[in-house]
Structures are given as C-alpha cells and as structure tokens.
C-alpha cells in the first residue's frame, strides 16, 4: 500500500523523517508559487500568498520544534495557543462589564488543565472543564449579582473554554502516549497525523472548491464553501489518512476507516461553526495575529473539532493508555 514509505524505510528513513520531508517539500513548493504567481496574469488573486507562506513556515517550524520537545514542549506551545485563541474569543464575544474578573478566571483554567497533563491524570483532565468549571464559573457569576444576560454570558464563556482550551488540550494528552503503545512513530506520529490531516483537509476543501466548486453548501453562514469542495476535500483527506495512517499510528482496519471517514467532515463542521460565530459577531477574521491568515482562531477552528474526536477514536480502537 505504501510503496514510497517502504522504499524510504529501506534506505533507513523513519516515517517521521519522510513525513517532515514531504511537509517541507510542500512548503517549498508553496513558497515558490508565492514568488512566481503574483507576477503572472492572475497576480492580484495571489497578492497575500507570500505572507501566508511565511506564516506557514513559522507555524510549522514552531509546531515541529515543540514536538521535538516532547510532551513538555507540546504542552507549552498549545497552552500559549489556547490562551491566544481564548483571548480572541472572549474579546470578540459580547461580554458583560461585571464579568471582567470571571474572564480572568477563565484564563486560569489553562494552567490548571495543563497541570493535569503534567501530572498525567487523564481522568481529572477529562472532567475539570466540562463539569467543574462549567458549574463553578456560573456560580461565581451569580455571586457577582448581575442576573441580566446571565445565561447567555455563562454559555458564551463556557463555549470558548471547551473549544479553545479543553479540545486543544487533547493534543498534549496524545503526546503522553508511551512508545510501546504507538510503536510506529511514537506519540509524535499520532499528533503528526492529526495536524497534517486536519490542515490538509482545510487546504483540499479550499483548493477543490476553487477549482470546480459551483453549488453553495452553506450560503448563509459561509458563502465561499461549496458541495464540490466539501466532497472533494473529504475524498482526498480520507485517501491521505488511509495511505499514511498505518505508518504513523497503530490504527488498522475498521478503526483506520472510521478515523479516515469521520475526520474530514468534522473538520469542515468546525470551520462552518466558527464561521457562524464570526458572522454573528460581525467580523471576517478573529484578529490580525497571523499575517495573511487572520487570527489564531481562524487557523484553529477545524482543529478544535477534530482533536477530541481523533483522540477518542484512537483511544477506543488503538491505544491501551487511554
């Protein structure tokens, strides 16, 4: 099935080595395109491709660096990413003046969540935000005494916490999987497949949609998205996961197919859901933090949906750790 991988392994390359080589090749190809395309007749369409590519280099460089740093490095990176995403979310969502200190406490859930990653107690991680923060923050809001807009405010803050902090935290949790439980490429391989599949899915859906997209799939929420882009992206990402999944993860057979078929539409769902939020708030991008891409949340939207699903499917089908 994976002839290229077999050949490369014969010459002594691990899956991660050739995986990184392929990612680097795409980066170089994209950068070359960013240098050439703006000079062609279609130039104006690609005006910010250069900025986008520079940002991709930084994003992928930082991610690769943190993965090399093991679960510790990954925890630091994704704790920062969660903070930036949550700050964007809580700044854009309507907030009540009275809730400033509640928002400060909401940020505090990040170090506490990561404390559970550090002491490696999965059960505590699992219930902390969805159960206990879910109850404690509304109680503290009740103590402040402003009841108008109470339900909407507490729901808004919790929505931000679950997507930006809890769901993203499954990535460092994956990094705690020991080598024996994922012998193909270690914990890094598990995270590598999640990140590559999620981002490739975004790119495939966008590119296929641009090339052959005609029928709008969500005209009110995300007018740029088409049925052709959605289905084409799903087929390509499913093929990618089936093709490289066994080299990076212990997923085989039914488990592999369930991940390959469910991850692409769920990534799409994350994208569309955040589009609805942005449309409600009245912004196109969540900030200008990443040049050419927009805000941290604009890049993270699909991952907040795919990370927990991928984690749980892996845990059910392939991992003894969780």
């Amino acid at each position, binding site marked *: 099935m994976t002839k290229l991988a077999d050949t490369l392994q014969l010459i002594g390359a691990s899956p991660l080595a050739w995986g990184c080589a392929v990612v680097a090749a795409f980066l170089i190809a994209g950068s070359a395109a960013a240098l050439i395309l703006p000079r062609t007749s279609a130039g104006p369409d690609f005006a910010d491709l250069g900025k986008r590519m520079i940002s991709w280099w930084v994003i992928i460089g930082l991610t690769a660096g943190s993965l090399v740093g093991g679960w510790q490095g990954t925890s630091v990176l994704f704790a920062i990413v969660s903070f930036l995403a949550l700050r964007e979310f*809580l*700044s854009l969502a309507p907030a*009540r003046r*009275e809730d400033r*200190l509640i928002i400060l406490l909401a940020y505090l859930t990040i170090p506490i969540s990561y404390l559970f990653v550090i002491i490696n107690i999965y059960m505590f991680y699992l219930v902390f935000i969805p159960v206990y923060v879910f109850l404690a923050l509304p109680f503290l809001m009740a103590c402040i005494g402003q009841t108008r*807009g109470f339900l*909407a405010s507490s729901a808004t803050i919790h929505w931000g916490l679950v997507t930006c902090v809890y769901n993203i935290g499954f990535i460092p949790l994956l990094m705690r999987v020991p080598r024996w439980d994922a012998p193909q490429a270690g914990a890094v391989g598990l995270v590598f497949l999640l990140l590559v599949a999620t981002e490739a899915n975004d790119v495939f859906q966008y590119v296929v949609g641009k090339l052959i997209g005609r029928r709008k799939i969500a005209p009110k929420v995300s007018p740029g998205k088409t049925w052709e882009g959605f289905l084409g992206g799903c087929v390509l990402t499913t093929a990618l996961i089936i093709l490289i999944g066994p080299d990076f993860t212990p997923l085989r057979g039914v488990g592999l197919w369930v991940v390959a078929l469910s991850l692409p539409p769920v990534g799409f769902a994350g994208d569309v859901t955040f589009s609805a939020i942005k449309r409600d708030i009245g912004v196109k991008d969540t*900030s*200008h933090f990443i040049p050419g891409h927009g805000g941290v949340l604009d890049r993270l939207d699909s991952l907040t949906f795919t990370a927990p699903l991928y984690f749980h499917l892996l845990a059910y089908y392939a991992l003894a750790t969780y």
Partner: protein
Amino acid sequence: MTWLRLLLITVVLRPWARLMTGADVIGREHLPLTGPAIIAANHNSHVDTLLLLTLFPARTLARVRPAAAADYFLSNPAISWVSRNLIGIVPVDRSAVGSGVDVLAPARAALENGDILIIFPEGTRGEAGEDMAPLKSGVARLAEACPRAPVTPVWIQGAGRVLPKGAHIPVPMTCAVLVGEPIHWTGDRASFMAALKQALEALHAQAPPLKWCETD
C-alpha cells in the same frame, strides 16, 4: 534615565502589552518615526499610553512623549517620578485652564525640540464601546503653533476593557490599534478639528466590533 526607560519599554512593556492586548496594529506604516509629530488618539484606559509606547522602534522611543494631566500624574512623588522618567510625560495642567497660564507651553516646547507628542484630545478617559467624547481644541492650537508637525490619528479599540477607568486589575483582551494617514494644519481651528474628528471616526468604523452586553 533614558536607558532605563528604553529598557523598560522594550523588555518589560512590550511583552506585557502583547500578553494583555495582542497589540494588533493596522496601518503601522503611518506612524511617524521622526519628530516633530503629533499622535492624536482616543482614550479609554491607562493601557492606551503604554500600548502606544510599545509600537515605536527603539531608536524612535527617546523622542516619543505622551501629554498627560499634571493634576493626576504629578499628584504624588512616586507616580510623578515614574511618569516623568519612565513614561516621559509632558505635563498639561488641566486645573490652570482658563486662568491665563499657558498650559500648553511644555507641549509646544517638546514639539519645537523635535519630539513625537502623544495627545488624547478627549481630555480624559471615556468608557469602552461608547462614542468619542467631544474633542478639546488643544491639539489644534499645537498644530497651529507647529504646522510642520503631521497629526496622525490613532483609534485604539478595546483597551477600555483591558483596564477600564476605576479598575485595578488588568484582564487580557485583544486590542486593535488603527493608525490613519496623517493630517496637517488646515489654517483654522474649526476645519482642523472637523478633519481630525472625521479621521478618528473613520478609523473607529473600521475597528472590529466591541460588545458589552446590554446590562442596564
């Protein structure tokens, strides 16, 4: 003290501002890098001044000086020392307005000296999310006195939620800083003030929305 101020702004204030506000700058190329120049910004929070200071490159910083109310910032010796030496304020004595004393003399002297003066023409901090307070004409008198100084309008969105007037604990919130094209002294105060107001309102219109829930 110049080196201490430079060190504080680049090593402490810059990372702090990024943490607290994200310092999302739109139109950075419009910021003046040489004096004399005037920055006219809306004002909702003490964070405004600190955030603006972090936007300038180190080599320009020594020239950047915020105009600040003498009655507030020179009120006690500790705040006064920090304001003068670390923030580098140009004092404006609001209490002496109308008494015949030339309250803008230090600001004019700073412009003559080639400094980049940060002014908040609203005169005091307003509430985040509210409309701009009526602009005071001091900025027009300074532009008149130093017509070669361009006046750069800056809209800061969101600092009033990081640290509103009266609050003591800052809460991280993304802020956008929108820098507009500089305007110049028009020849009379009324048209200059109208142009400045229009420029600030145009920047405000481009800023990301800032929503407080309706709670009253």
